[in-house]
């Protein structure tokens, strides 16, 4: 079925057959088990208790909250079974942004890897590059210099800030405060300007590479970051006035999409959703990587596990990130920004004109790529959405044999049906927005 013959037939074959939600009468008893949530199904006993509700008058309609929908944060398709406005069963159908990145990852060398991986979670691209680089460095067994580690931490916290600002903007818009999009994006542009000054690009930076960082920090980066740290906290307080004290906002988010710690752990959820249930688990503190054990920050934990908690956690985490950035500002060590191991780092540009070996070295690293010893390595970082892991299997050649990225949003999307059960469609929109899934990371 190539796209051309869709063109002739004129009829778009968009039904995905078995992947879709089957109506009760066709699918029979086992499908009703999905009632509680796509994954945490009802037990037979609960379904039996449910069974006596006579189904003939409550005709449930199955409706598509499809790939092209303003509030599904990208191309997520949810099939909802509705009784009037109330959501009974939900099934996420994903794959509408499947880009075959893991297959492409096997064709690119380790130096080209970050360009492919950075397009997975496009709200926080630097985290993908970081996790790929950490896994590669674990395979190589090399140590990245102090300055590179701290630069990576600075960039990741800036990216976390911009990702949480994107969340606040879209969360406000999804719940009806459309002007939040304008406010949220105003701050995000400030953060992206600082990232553009440092890395040269607003997104998909390819700045964190195996072996360190692509370039040193430019002149005047302290002034830009300090200016950011002066303006954004005041703006976050402005959001508090705009959103938190609003009865409408509270009414839409409090008590909606409640989830408990046991359910989160059973579903494999990490990040703000797990922390919103009151369970303090943050990789930056519990399995420290980079230099997070030398920086002092707080892990923010919620109390009820509903959408309002997740909103408050992300708002507070944005402030924590700025607190970390302030500490990095004064404690950034000097030194070189890339590992000086000849095998991994190409020689500096000036050396190439002088020595023949440097030119050969430069040529070999950029065309054929450096060889990584055979083995497997798994690295994980705390991305704004949860634990982002990267498994690299190397067969000794210059290209990874298998690259697997564990996206937190993939598990968060599977938990949506569980949180949306029993709520209204409007609550479902607020829940999708609170889970903040990024479809690039779900479909890879």
């Amino acid at each position, binding site marked *: *079925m190539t796209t051309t013959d869709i063109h002739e037939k004129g009829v778009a074959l968009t*039904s*995905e*057959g*078995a*992947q879709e939600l089957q109506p009760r009468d066709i699918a029979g008893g*086992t499908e009703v*088990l999905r009632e509680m949530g*796509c*994954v*945490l*199904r009802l037990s037979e006993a609960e379904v039996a208790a449910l069974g006596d509700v006579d189904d003939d008058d409550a005709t449930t309609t199955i409706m598509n909250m499809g790939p092209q929908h303003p509030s599904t944060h990208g191309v997520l398709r949810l099939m909802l079974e509705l009784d009037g406005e109330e959501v009974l069963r939900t099934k996420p159908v*994903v*794959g509408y942004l*499947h880009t*075959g990145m*893991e*297959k*492409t990852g096997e*064709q690119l060398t380790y130096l080209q890897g970050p360009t492919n991986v950075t397009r997975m979670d496009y709200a926080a691209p630097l985290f993908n590059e970081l996790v790929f680089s950490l896994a590669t460095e*674990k*395979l190589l*067994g090399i140590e990245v210099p102090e300055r590179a580690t701290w630069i990576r931490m600075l960039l990741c916290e800036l990216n976390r800030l911009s990702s949480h600002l994107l969340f606040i903007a879209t969360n406000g818009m999804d719940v009806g405060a459309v002007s939040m999009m304008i406010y949220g994006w105003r701050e995000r542009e400030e953060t992206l300007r600082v990232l553009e000054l440092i890395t040269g690009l607003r997104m998909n930076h390819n700045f964190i590479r195996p072996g360190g960082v692509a370039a040193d920090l430019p002149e005047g980066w302290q002034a830009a970051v300090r200016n950011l740290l002066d303006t954004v906290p005041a703006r976050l307080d402005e959001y508090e006035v705009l959103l938190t004290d609003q009865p409408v906002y509270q009414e839409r988010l409090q008590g909606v999409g409640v989830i408990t710690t046991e359910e989160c*752990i*059973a*579903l*494999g*959820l*990490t990040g703000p959703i797990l922390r919103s249930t009151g369970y303090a*688990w943050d990789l930056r503190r*519990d*399995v420290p990587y980079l230099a997070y054990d030398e920086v002092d920050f707080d892990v923010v934990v919620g109390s009820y596990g509903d959408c309002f908690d997740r909103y408050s956690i992300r708002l507070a985490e944005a402030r924590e990130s700025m607190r970390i950035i302030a500490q990095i500002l004064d404690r950034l060590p000097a030194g070189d920004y890339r590992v000086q191991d000849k095998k991994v780092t190409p020689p500096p540009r000036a050396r190439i004109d002088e020595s023949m070996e440097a030119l050969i070295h430069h040529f070999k690293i950029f065309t054929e790529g450096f060889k990584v010893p*055979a*083995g*497997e*390595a*798994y690295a*994980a970082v705390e991305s704004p959405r949860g*634990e982002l*892991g990267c*498994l690299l*299997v190397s*067969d*000794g*050649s210059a290209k990874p*044999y*298998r690259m*697997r990225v*564990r996206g937190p949003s*993939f*598990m968060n*999307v*599977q938990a949506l049906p569980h949180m949306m059960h029993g709520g209204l469609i409007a609550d479902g929109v607020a829940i999708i927005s609170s889970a903040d899934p990024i479809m690039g990371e779900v*479909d*890879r």
Partner: protein
Amino acid sequence: MTDADADTPDGDEGATEATEGPEPIHGAPVTEHRGHRTAHVARDGLLDLVKALRDEGWLMLLDVTAVDQLTNANRAPLPEGVAPERFELHVLLMSHREASRLTLKVQVPEDDPTVPSLFALHPGAEALEREVFDMFGIGFDGHPDLTRILMPEDWEGHPLRKDYAVGRIPVQFKGDPGPR
């Protein structure tokens, strides 16, 4: 006495390194590589090992993925008694109390690629196993809804297998680029 202690530790040092390595978990041999602990378990022993580990504190299932070892020149060494097969299932578990991760490796033969599903123990595994089925064609018996998750429903073949072409369209050279 003292020199006896002096030399025996070196002796033992060499010995312990070679023979047993990290101690086996519930009878599954464990190898350690760059801080990446891996337990090798047979297909039928998977469910009770995961159950035992879960009662021990390995509560969260982080990831279920597979590696097609068809064309892997130098593959990670397997402990003796574990026959290398084409597919290798990686089950990644995490214990919050010890703040550490453990990978379970299951060898899956090519002719009968089925593995018992972990859905009963960790419901979160449903989507992960659907993705492994979609990308590698490894069946999971006991899985409630084993269908494709990423590819369209009527897609033939399993893309992440090593014998599946990348599907690259050769880029034609459309005329010479203008003066640089």
